[in-house]
């Protein structure tokens, strides 16, 4: 499998806080990759560096063979990297359909038709004419996913797609990701819901303090001592270790 997205030794600091330190991540083409780690481990910062929302202090980002380090977000998107945000960012005063058309590269009639297809795909086509600001939180998550997909990106970066949404919607989102992945879309997913990540992802990368501490298939990563240390700190109590291992097992995730 060829590497589609690669970061090499990325450093990023905010004042005295080192958000990313020598961060190297590889995402294979056609993969559903997970990016996990405790709060403040640098996951969203890595997303921001990849998509041009934050400039790397050092290191490189590649899309295929193309170097895309520190290029503007609109150019990153045009090259085929779409992303969603942890806190959904939709255009509240525009209608749902207008939200879809912002990212569209097609002509008017064709764009509306494709947008409606995507809205049907995520299940909110019935709301196409209402202002997006009237949608519920879960519907906003779906809209954000849909309007990123409308431009047919090669890779989609999802920042906590299952965060703050109910079980039904989590399963629905997971189902859509699987379908899109089967159609050739690569995913990189930041998520705290372990069942969601472990059940969906082919590869999981674990960040701690801005550095990759483990990477590999979910079955390997969940037993890695460094991962448990990252979540619990070094020398955790035996009962904490057991609890953490249980939390990383499929079926133990929050709400799923």
């Amino acid at each position, binding site marked *: 499998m060829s590497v589609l997205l690669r970061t090499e030794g990325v450093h990023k600091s905010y004042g005295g806080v080192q958000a990313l330190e020598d961060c190297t991540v590889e995402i294979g083409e056609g993969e559903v990759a997970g990016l996990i780690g405790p709060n403040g481990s640098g996951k969203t910062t890595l997303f921001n560096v990849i998509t041009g929302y934050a400039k790397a202090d050092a290191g490189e980002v590649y899309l295929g063979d193309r170097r895309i380090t520190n290029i503007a977000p609109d150019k990153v998107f045009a090259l085929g990297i779409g992303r969603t945000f942890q806190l959904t960012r939709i255009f509240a005063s*525009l209608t749902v359909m207008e939200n879809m058309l912002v990212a569209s590269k097609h002509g008017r009639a064709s764009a509306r038709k494709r947008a409606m297809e995507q809205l*049907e795909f995520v299940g909110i086509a019935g709301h196409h004419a209402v202002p997006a600001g009237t949608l519920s939180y879960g519907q906003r998550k779906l809209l954000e996913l849909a309007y990123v997909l409308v431009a047919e990106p090669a890779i989609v970066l999802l920042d906590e797609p299952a965060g703050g949404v109910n079980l039904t*919607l989590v399963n629905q989102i997971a189902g859509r990701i699987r*379908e899109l992945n089967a159609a050739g879309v690569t995913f990189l997913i930041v998520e705290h819901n372990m069942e969601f990540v472990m059940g969906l992802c082919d590869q999981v990368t674990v960040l701690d303090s801005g550095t990759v501490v483990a990477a590999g298939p979910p079955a390997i990563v969940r037993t890695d001592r460094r991962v448990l240390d990252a979540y619990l700190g070094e020398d955790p109590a035996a009962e904490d270790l057991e609890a953490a291992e249980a939390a990383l097992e499929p079926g133990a995730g929050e709400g799923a």
Partner: protein
Amino acid sequence: MSESSTGTQDRGARAVPSGGLTGARGLRIAGVVAVLAAAVAFPQVFTNPAVTNYGVFAMIFVAVASAWNTFSGFSGYISLGHAVFFGSGAYAVGVAARDWHVAGVGVFGLLPLAAAVGALIAVPFGLVALRVRRHTFIVITIALFFIFQLMAFNFSFTQGSSGLDAPFLSWSLQTFNNPFYYIALACAAGATALAWLIRRSRFGLQLRAIRDDEDRARGLGVRTMRVKLAAFVLSAAITGLVGGLWFYYIAQVEPQTGFDPLFDLFVVLMAFLGGLGTVSGPVLGALIIEPGQLYLTTVFTNAYLSEILLGVLFLAVVLFMPRGIIPTSTEWITKLRTRGRSAIPPASQRAAAPTGLRSDEGATREGGALKAARRRAGKAQRVGKVL
């Protein structure tokens, strides 16, 4: 795309909205034609120059408010520096007519120069000011405005504080206002039509996306600086053109009248009163405020009184109608239309309501009636959006 999505393609194609109700569209077209007909007939019906004077100023400010709204209303970047383009347009045709010895009706041929000068100034102005947002942008536009006013006071070609006089037009006093009225009407209609076209276009959609969340729009491929600058330059060109016309009409320009700090406040008030970001809002606001302000200035010898009353109006708009007349009245119409209709149907009806694909618990509880209510609200909002 996956099978499931392609499977929905036909249904999706059929579900694409057709663009509103035919009846409502017919009503809107009839309304626009009636307003235009009334505007064309105005100087023929009211021949008194004192009355047509109101018409000329009203049309000038309809054009300027529409142009301002095309940039500031759509993008959310509130400019308080559009007087720069208005004054520069006035000075541009004044200097050109003086230095090139243009006189008579030929001076109107210089109006495109006023537009070009407005646009040319807007490019460096925009490249600087549009790098910052919100309050900082407003402050920078004010600062640049005062720089231009100061330049008009001090440059020799602008003739300092004495300003410039327009070439004399030897027209009959009784009908002197009419040609100005019709040119201003053409500018007003053109600026409003342009605002309508832009609002419906991809360019307009990108501007409105910038207003909601500029960084997000950028992350979806919108070249935000280019879009903002294009709208700013376009808006400045129209404002400059109208500034040139205004100069010919009042026959002189001075630094404090061409670059008037109250100019932008009036234009902003017009847009806010009518409805910021709507097409018809600034038109309505200009038609209320400009004649109102002229009337108050005429009736009360104390010129400051009209400004105080306009200040009170501004406060009243902010307090009681912060979204403006058009959006607020649209909201009232929507409420009246949907009044008395239950959002959640009785349990017996809910059982029969289509389930569809639910996206959260709230949506799961939604019945058909809520969806219908949302559709009605959406329809009413679509009607309101094009007003």
